[in-house]
């Protein structure tokens, strides 16, 4: 049973550029959440996608956008990159029908903005 997968593993960009990160949820899961984890901090919730719609959003600017595809996979897009966007970006998946919010994380994409 494949767990949550993310690509790429690492990414280096320069300020002002745009980036797209990808996530495939655990088999049987239909909901994808994205988190940003700065060094030495806990993950911060960015947004959650369910049925191809943004369901919840944290305190992140509109530069952060996402998408969910019919196969439940998801993308996170960040425009106009800032140095402060350097972080580990985590994707987590869950199943709405389970009635709980147990979320399972992928290995993350480490983004460095120079």
């Amino acid at each position: 049973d494949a767990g949550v997968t993310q690509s790429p593993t690492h990414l280096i960009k320069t300020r002002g550029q745009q980036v797209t990160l990808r996530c495939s949820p655990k088999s049987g899961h239909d909901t994808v959440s994205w988190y940003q984890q700065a060094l030495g901090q806990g993950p911060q919730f960015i947004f959650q996608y369910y049925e191809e719609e943004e369901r919840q959003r944290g305190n992140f600017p509109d530069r952060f956008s996402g998408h969910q595809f019919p196969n439940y996979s998801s993308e996170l897009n960040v425009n106009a990159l800032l140095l402060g966007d350097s972080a580990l970006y985590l994707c987590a998946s869950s199943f709405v029908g389970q009635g709980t919010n147990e979320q399972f994380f992928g290995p993350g994409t480490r983004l460095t903005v120079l």
Partner: protein
Amino acid sequence: QKEVEQDPGPLSVPEGAIVSLNCTYSNSAFQYFMWYRQYSRKGPELLMYTYSSGNKEDGRFTAQVDKSSKYISLFIRDSQPSDSATYLCAMGDMNRDDKIIFGKGTRLHILP
């Protein structure tokens, strides 16, 4: 006051000792509580999920929730060097939304 407070450590204990990790929270609406383990440069791994006050045991791990005190704990028995990692507490309120709020994490070192 932050919604979730967690001592960042580091916490160093000898192999075989009982480890106690704790978080406090301010939002009485939180209904479910989780503990994750995160190894360096890896994603968090779900260890325990609890939905009510009291204790939940899984192998060497015991999660404890005290909603009246807004305090949760994770106990690790017979600690092993492989338990060395960062432990993150997390919690949420499914009635309000599904956002999970994480603590900063406690770095744990088990000394052989």
